[in-house]
């Protein structure tokens, strides 16, 4: 009945199951009747304009925001019911959400990803140090380990936050606008890295407003503007009328290689 049933044919029980999820802050509806199933190994980009509820959708999955209506299952459990399952989710939040002048090194930030797993009253073990080193190797920042985060470039910083998520050995990776404040070349290589992780079997949900670029690195696209506007393979969704409708303004597409690019004419 929904388009996403096609994707659900992949093996294994779904990693994420959202059914008719609504979120309202006071009287403002931020998410309206969103249903989404993410099977293991999928990589989806959630696209939409500012204020479309993209971050809120991630926060619902993480259990940081409780939906006003509908049901949420992640790894078969409700967010309130997740204990050990929390470890299976890696999260890369928007870069603006932390103090970038905080006096910590890249290595310490990556180690923080393990703190929940290490537990109270304990110090990081050899296994924790190994996991941190491995995560930094995977994203290629071993040479930056001792550098204070204040002295990293935007692209390097995002790799540190990605390594922090990976250090916890997650099966599901949620990324919120990972290329904000990152120059074009670095964001290209960040997407390459994510694509590599996806090929290694990582389930991935990526929030962006960066329509054209994202689409060439993911398997599916979800268009969100409070409601789920469209859901499907990038080349299907990005050619549709629905995108223009979603952005609520004049939009036009031009085809460039495999993936159509979107040009949005903003007001002003």
């Amino acid at each position: 009945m929904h388009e996403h049933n096609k994707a659900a044919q992949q093996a294994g029980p779904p990693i994420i199951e959202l059914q008719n999820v609504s979120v309202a802050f006071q009287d403002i509806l931020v998410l309206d009747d969103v249903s989404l199933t993410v099977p293991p190994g999928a990589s989806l980009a959630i696209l939409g304009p500012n204020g479309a509820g993209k971050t809120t959708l991630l926060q619902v999955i993480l259990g940081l925001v409780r939906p006003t209506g509908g049901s949420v299952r992640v790894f078969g459990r409700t967010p309130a019911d997740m204990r050990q399952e929390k470890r299976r989710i890696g999260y890369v939040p928007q870069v603006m959400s932390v103090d970038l002048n905080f006096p910590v090194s890249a290595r310490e930030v990556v180690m923080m990803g393990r703190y929940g797993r290490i537990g109270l009253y304990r110090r990081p073990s050899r296994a924790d140090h190994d996991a941190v080193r491995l995560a930094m190797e995977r994203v290629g920042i071993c040479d930056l380990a001792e550098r204070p985060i204040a002295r990293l470039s935007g692209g390097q910083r995002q790799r540190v936050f990605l390594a922090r998520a990976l250090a916890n050995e997650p099966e599901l990776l949620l990324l919120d606008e990972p290329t904000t404040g990152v120059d074009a070349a670095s964001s290209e290589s960040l997407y390459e890295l994510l694509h590599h992780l996806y090929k290694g079997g990582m389930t991935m949900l990526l929030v962006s407003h960066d329509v054209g670029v994202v689409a060439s690195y993911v398997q599916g696209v979800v268009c969100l503007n409070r409601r789920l506007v469209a859901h499907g393979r990038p080349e299907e969704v990005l050619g549709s009328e629905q995108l223009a409708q979603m952005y609520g303004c004049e939009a036009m597409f031009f085809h460039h290689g495999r993936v159509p690019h979107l040009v949005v004419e903003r007001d002003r």
Partner: protein
Amino acid sequence: MTEILGYAFMQRALVAGAVIGIVCAVVGVYVVLKGLSFIGAGIAHASFGGVALGFLLGFNPVLTAVVFCMATAWGIGLVSTRTKIKEDTAVGIFFASTMAFGILLISLMRGYNIDLFGYLFGSILAVSAQDLRITIIFGIAVLLLVALFFKELMFVTFDAEMAAVTGVPAGKIYFLLISLVALTVVTSIKVVGAVLVSALLVTPAAAAYQLTEDFRRMMAAAVLLGVGSAVGGLLLSYKLDTPSGATIVLLSTALYGIAALISPRRRRSRRGRT
């Protein structure tokens, strides 16, 4: 100068000063990095209400101040996390009302001879043997709690949302942190005073922040600056016959000024960031 070390009151004040310098600096690192300065100031002013309550009930005012400050800290924490009221508004509400409560209580107790000025601005002469014991016990309690939850406190201070996501009890750690602020304030009111303690909570840590980009080194530098300000300020206040709290705070501010001038952070940011 050495002869003043022979006085018992001065020995007590100096030991208390050193403990306060350490505790304020350690907790101050979290306060500065998480932006809790205003909460610190609010809790500090609330301690005045607790002191007044102690006098009225006939207990050691420092002990009633602990209960009072802790209740205020939790009140601010609950209002700002459970309701839609913002943190600084919550502080604003508690800040004035607890102080007003203290003033009201004291006005009811005419005839009592209370060293109000000492509680507000600190006094070297005020540290009794019992006060010193309380200061040391609270000081050790605060440092033990920081040591036990060191990594969680750092994570929650840096990125509370991410801490919660990875299974760190971020909400509880936040309440632990504001409880530590309350304990620290109470530990310090005898020497520095309710009005000025928030400065000692912030200034040494803020100075240390200028000097290093490493969390542990920042804490170590803050401790050195905090103890230097407290002990140095006490000796100066004796020499100059000035109120101890004011002298300590002004000395720590002077140290902050020097730190800001020689700060590698500042020089780097002046060289130009995008």
